[in-house]
């Protein structure tokens, strides 16, 4: 008895670390989602428009609905039940429609499995590593039609050894568990048996000849016929024996943080990713675009509006928005304008960073989330402020939502990312070389019609951003419909007062002296806070305020949010009262 159990345990381990074909490449036509099964576990298998084949747990993390009934839009897979969207490659959730104003936590990620496409088939394994089996002698091949059977894998494999499709056939098992049948004339078929679950299998065969036309059809027919014969025999044999106990796949539990409602934050200003500069090119006058590729593993999921911290070779840390469209998950792209007067970040990128360089970057953070529940969205971009808005507009465009894109530039030569913008077609209007007054007049025209479920996203230089916000306000746009992101905070910061800080959840009382920020005091006391720009522009270090008045010195919160006093940017803002109670 002991021996039997041991043997089974070893077999299970082997089974789970093997590669198996789970589908033919032809099972994945354009924008289809294929349902596969291996060792009792269901997979949703889908090919994105860029060709990548995704093999995921066939279960939405939210309410357990099969993703194989979902929608493949070429970039993302959308769950049929609540419209949650999962990104190509990463399987990270990019959007939760029930909460359009929130950016989903990037750790909401579906279970993915190792997958490769080779020899005309899709291969997967729960814990497969390395490469799929090399098939020497099958470089030019024809994939046979798959044959499903009601019989256990081992029984099917054994019976395949006696398979005969021509004169002089002999069968031999291979190390990877497959079976090769070679005929007298050198024609050979290699069979893999996909263990669907305990008592079901699929025979997937490859012929060592690339056949076309009628020759291919007659060969497929011959093997169909022979394999159906084998199927009848094996199924009859299986019906005689006691069925094996069903395989019960274990579903990984979601992380503890995700099982609760509040948001999580990632700690500190860290650069956990290493990337190479795969491309660097001028995209407009004074604007360079950089493409970052991962050195190892998959880059984390981003959402439109997200930025990354780039740690530069000269020690500076700078924030740049991603311009990627949905589904572009194998790289990050940023755009950087040369600002000779700034603190040296952009100059370093323009002059020092070269193609092939290694850089440290943070995972994407999204403090500028895009609502996708607007009936119409207006984007207003000024100069290099276009970058986050490109990613947003590409997302709306791909989902067929209504939007218009106004791009204010000095001249045509200053318009960046023309190729990506080309996707927007008539929705794009380029406004060239307008004076501040002309810009104001144009904006009044653009923002003339506020209304229900209409939203505006603005990013650009400070004065233009402020002008746009004032115009929107004057034309009756509600505070909640105007979304903006500053590049930097030009507010003159005052850190001359001192006050007491109570941390409600950590039960700590701290003193913030003049000359120190709340963020610094928190860190000194061992509270690891997430932050990014550390100048009140990006929103990463936002914390809830339970009691006390705040001197807001940031440019992230809207006037309404500042008046409400329910949150504070700990990197620049301070208490107006003697005491501030924070929700930490």
């Amino acid at each position: 008895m002991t021996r039997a159990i041991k043997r089974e345990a070893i077999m299970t381990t082997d089974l789970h670390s093997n590669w198996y074909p789970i589908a033919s490449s032809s099972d994945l036509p354009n924008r289809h989602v294929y349902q596969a099964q291996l060792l009792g576990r269901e997979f949703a298998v889908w090919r994105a428009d860029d060709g990548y084949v995704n093999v995921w747990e066939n279960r939405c993390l939210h309410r357990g609905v099969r993703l194989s009934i979902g929608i493949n839009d070429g970039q993302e897979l959308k769950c049929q039940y609540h419209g949650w969207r999962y990104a190509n490659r990463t399987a990270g959730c990019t959007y939760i429609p029930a909460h359009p104003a929130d950016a989903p936590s990037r750790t909401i990620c579906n279970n993915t499995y190792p997958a490769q496409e080779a020899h005309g088939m899709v291969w997967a394994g729960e814990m497969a590593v390395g490469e799929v089996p090399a098939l020497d002698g099958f470089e030019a091949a024809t994939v046979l039609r798959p044959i499903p059977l009601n019989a256990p894998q081992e029984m099917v494999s054994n019976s395949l050894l006696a398979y005969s499709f021509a004169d002089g056939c002999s069968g031999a098992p291979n190390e990877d568990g497959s079976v090769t049948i070679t005929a007298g004339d050198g024609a050979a078929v290699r069979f893999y048996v996909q263990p669907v679950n305990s008592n079901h299998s699929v025979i997937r065969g490859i012929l060592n000849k690339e056949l076309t036309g009628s020759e291919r059809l007659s060969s497929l027919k011959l093997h169909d016929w022979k394999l159906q014969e084998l199927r009848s025999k094996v199924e009859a044999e299986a019906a005689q024996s006691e069925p094996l106990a069903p395989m019960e796949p274990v579903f990984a539990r979601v992380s503890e943080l995700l099982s609760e409602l509040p948001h999580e934050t990632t700690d500190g200003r860290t650069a956990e990713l290493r990337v190479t500069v795969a491309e660097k090119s001028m995209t407009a006058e004074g604007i360079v675009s950089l493409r970052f590729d991962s050195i190892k593993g998959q880059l984390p999921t981003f959402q439109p509006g997200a930025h990354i911290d780039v740690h530069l070779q000269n020690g500076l840390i700078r924030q740049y928005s991603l311009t990627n469209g949905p589904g572009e998950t194998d790289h990050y792209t940023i755009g950087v304008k040369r600002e000779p007067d700034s603190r040296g970040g952009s100059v370093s990128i323009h002059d020092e960073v070269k193609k092939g360089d290694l850089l440290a970057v943070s995972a994407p953070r999204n403090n500028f989330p895009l609502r996708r529940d607007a009936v119409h969205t207006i984007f207003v971009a000024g100069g290099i402020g276009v970058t986050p808005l490109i990613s947003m507009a590409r997302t709306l465009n791909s989902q067929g939502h209504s939007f218009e894109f106004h791009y204010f530039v000095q001249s045509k030569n200053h318009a960046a990312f023309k190729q990506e913008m080309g996707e927007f077609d008539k929705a794009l209007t380029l406004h060239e070389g307008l004076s501040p007054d002309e810009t104001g007049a144009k904006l009044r025209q653009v923002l003339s019609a506020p209304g229900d479920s209409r939203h505006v996203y603005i990013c650009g230089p400070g004065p233009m951003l402020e002008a746009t916000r004032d115009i929107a306000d004057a034309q009756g746009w509600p505070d909640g419909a105007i979304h903006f992101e500053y590049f930097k905070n030009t507010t003159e910061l005052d850190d001359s007062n001192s006050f007491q800080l109570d941390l409600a959840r950590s039960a700590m009382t701290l003193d913030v002296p003049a000359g120190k920020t709340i963020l610094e005091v928190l860190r000194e006391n061992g509270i690891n806070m997430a932050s990014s720009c550390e100048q009140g522009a990006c929103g990463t270090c936002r914390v809830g305020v339970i009691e006390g008045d705040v001197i807001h010195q940031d440019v992230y919160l809207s006037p309404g949010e500042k008046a409400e006093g329910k949150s504070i940017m700990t990197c620049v803002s301070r208490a107006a009262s003697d005491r501030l109670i924070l929700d930490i």
Partner: protein
Amino acid sequence: MPEFTCKDPVALNLWHVIASVEEVADGSVQRTQLLGDQVAFTQRADGDFIVWRPTDSNSDSVPSDPAVLLPVQQKYGYIWTTFGTPEHDIFAIPEFDESDRRNIHAATFGVHVSAPRAIENFLDMGHFPYVHTDILGAEPHTEVKEYYVDVSEERDEIVATNCKFWQPIAAAGSTDGADVDYIYRVPHPYCSVLYKSCPGEESRLDAIAVFVQPVDEEHVRAHMMLTLIDEVSADTAIRLFQQTIFGQDKPILENQYPKRLPLDPRAETPIRADKSAIAYRRWLTGKGITYGVIPSAA
């Protein structure tokens, strides 16, 4: 009498709907399944409904010994029975007795899913634009706004209030979409009642109840009862509407996996919109119910 297949005392001691009274209108003997066991029922000549467990799978003879009959109640147009001794009477739906309302049995739907999964779907607004497209919701209006959930200790039921959802045809005759108000009650582990704005009368609410009959742990018959203030629509039109809605939910429910409702908080990922479902799962955990759920290991 053989033992019951269901071993969960909580489920055994509940009242369950097994059929609409319309199912035996002709006095015939009908059969259905409850908690994994066959039950037969009919209406006697005196008008009373009787329910029993048939001993012979082929015979439809009415038992002569009254001792083998199961407890029965006729309420809200349905036949209710129990395999145990319920602690509470069947929950109240006071609207049912208002004289100017129409009470309609809209549908009985068989679904290959557990009863608690069906209840969660009934409580859920977030799926309206995706599953009931252009009827109960439409993209891009997908937001589930903040609402309140309470567990009433006194009545032992979950109540979700201040629920609002944008609907394309908010009321009969309106051409524009608008937010529609909902209230949800879960007074029974396998039953729920929702109230929504009534197109005819602003101050009152239409009610829709779902009584889910657990055929076994992973199969149900969902009985839908409406109590409306509506003097215009024909019964057939009202039924067709509800059947369309339920017909859209059925394939989703049948593709939920696992079919039993996992009560482990880490089995699935809730969001704020799922507040009522979270309260429901906790409430079920508190009751110690095991039938149709995967209890939390802890």
